[in-house]
């Protein structure tokens, strides 16, 4: 009886999740594709977004997310490694782990507000590509730290022992063996963070702002796809709504292909991993 109930609940959950996903994908595709044309991908917006393309948002999103992921990965991957290796012995490592845990629970709009205060105002960057990327990096950082930490902790001790028994130092074990085993997981962490960042509007609203042009420097404002969706759907013109769906469609394809890439990479790089 209980088993039946659990099975039923599981079935309902599956149907709801899959159904929701399917409806969203099909609807976005249906509405977006009709507005989608080559000019959408290669032209800047004209006439307050009612004509022209989304090049400003596409380029802006790519720049902001890539920069943010670059920043967060270059701090987060070493931090995750450090925490995993030294959590037992180092207070700083435990503090960093705790901080990452707390940071990952903070709503993204709060990142937006503090990104504005710290990067835009205090550090005098203005509303800019750089301020947006740095704010987004703060949001992505805990993801990268946590996933890296988990992966590295899962590296079996017998692999490390093998290297140590050959005369490797702790550092050589970490840099030549542990990393190799963890690389597929770390790469997944980075791509996951990218995908998460690419979908965020709230942290960017006050930090990178919006612009109808592609950014000319790190310090100029930059558009992005999530905000493009938001602004276009708020407009009182039907043709703007169609373009909002097109923007949502492009964003979805971007994130999904990122996901698919990470799967392929994971498979490829897992070839040498010891199970």
């Amino acid at each position, binding site marked *: 009886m209980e088993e039946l109930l659990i099975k039923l609940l599981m079935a309902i959950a599956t149907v709801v999740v899959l159904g929701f996903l399917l409806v969203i994908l099909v609807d976005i595709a249906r509405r977006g594709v009709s507005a989608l044309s080559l000019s959408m991908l290669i032209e800047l917006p004209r006439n307050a977004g009612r004509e022209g393309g989304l090049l400003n948002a596409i380029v802006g999103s790519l720049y902001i997310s890539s920069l943010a992921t670059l920043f967060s990965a270059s701090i987060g991957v070493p931090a995750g490694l450090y925490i995993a290796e030294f959590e037992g012995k180092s207070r700083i490592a435990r503090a960093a782990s705790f901080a990452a845990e707390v940071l990952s629970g903070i709503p993204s709009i709060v990142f937006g507000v503090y990104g504005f205060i710290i990067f835009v105002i205090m550090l005098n960057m203005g509303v800019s590509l750089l301020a947006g990327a740095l704010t987004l990096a703060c949001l992505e950082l805990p993801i990268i730290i946590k996933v890296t930490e988990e992966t590295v902790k899962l590296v079996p001790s*017998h*692999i490390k*022992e*093998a*290297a*140590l*028994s*050959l*005369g*490797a*130092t702790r550092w*050589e074990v970490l840099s*030549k*063996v542990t990393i*190799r*085993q963890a690389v597929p997981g770390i790469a997944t962490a980075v791509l996951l963070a990218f995908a998460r960042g690419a979908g965020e509007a709230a942290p960017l609203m006050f930090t990178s702002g919006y612009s109808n042009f592609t950014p000319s420097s790190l310090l100029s404002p930059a558009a992005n796809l999530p905000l493009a969706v938001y602004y276009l759907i708020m407009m009182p013109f039907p043709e703007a709504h169609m373009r909002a769906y097109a923007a949502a469609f492009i964003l979805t394809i971007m994130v999904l292909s990122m996901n698919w890439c990470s799967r392929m990479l994971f498979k490829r790089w897992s*070839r*040498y*991993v*010891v*199970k």
Partner: protein
Amino acid sequence: MLSSKSLKNLQHSRPSVQGKIVVENLNVYFGKHHVLKNLSIAIPDRQVTAIIGPSGCGKTTFLRSLNRMIELVDGAKVTGKVFLDGLNIYSPKVDSSDIRRRVGMVFQKPNPLPMSIYDNVAFGPRIHGIRNKKVLDKLVEESLKAAGLWDEVKNRLKDPAVSLSGGQQQRLCIARALAVNPEVLLMDEPTASLDPISSAKIESLIRELKRKYTIIVVTHNLQQAMRIADYVVFLFMGELIEHGAADEIFTSPRNTKTIEYLRGAFS
């Protein structure tokens, strides 16, 4: 940095008996747990020494104290001396990674590194500073040949090590250990996870390798000990009960515990 040779000359305390490895008053504690109790023994050069004894008696612990792998266990404490060719490996100036290069180890379960077959064997030489491709190629080939694996893998050196069978992986681990040119090879139940055919291969390999290396094997399999050992060490609850030439121990053991163990009284 002192070379091991000049260190050796600095060493005042000398082992009182002859042997490739001489252990004097070795004690190992895990926290309060006294696991190895005042062991003293000399391990003969270029012979196969088998360590036997019931489960939990300290065989693995003993083996790991011979290349300082024991130090990796949190809370492990070692007292006493272990001489490798007269050099006390626990003396403060001795570098543990230097000792581990000279005293190689093969584990109970094959533990390949997450890389190709070639890179597994080349790992040790590389960390010890060999960069030249030709030299590495030659070392890898020689080591794989010595481990009896070359013919099976020579056309797939770039394949992941994990794509090999369990028995092949274990021989790869032996090749990897040989590649750093050790003097001693420690093997902890090297055939315990293998099928009979792979086990037989490893056994004949051990008999082959003793011409060049001092080999110490932990085994639960008395038949295996009889087949491969020249010298036998019997441990019981952390104490060294009896040791001697294999035929003596197996045909005329003196201690009653040894007799009972050989009869199969303990598992």
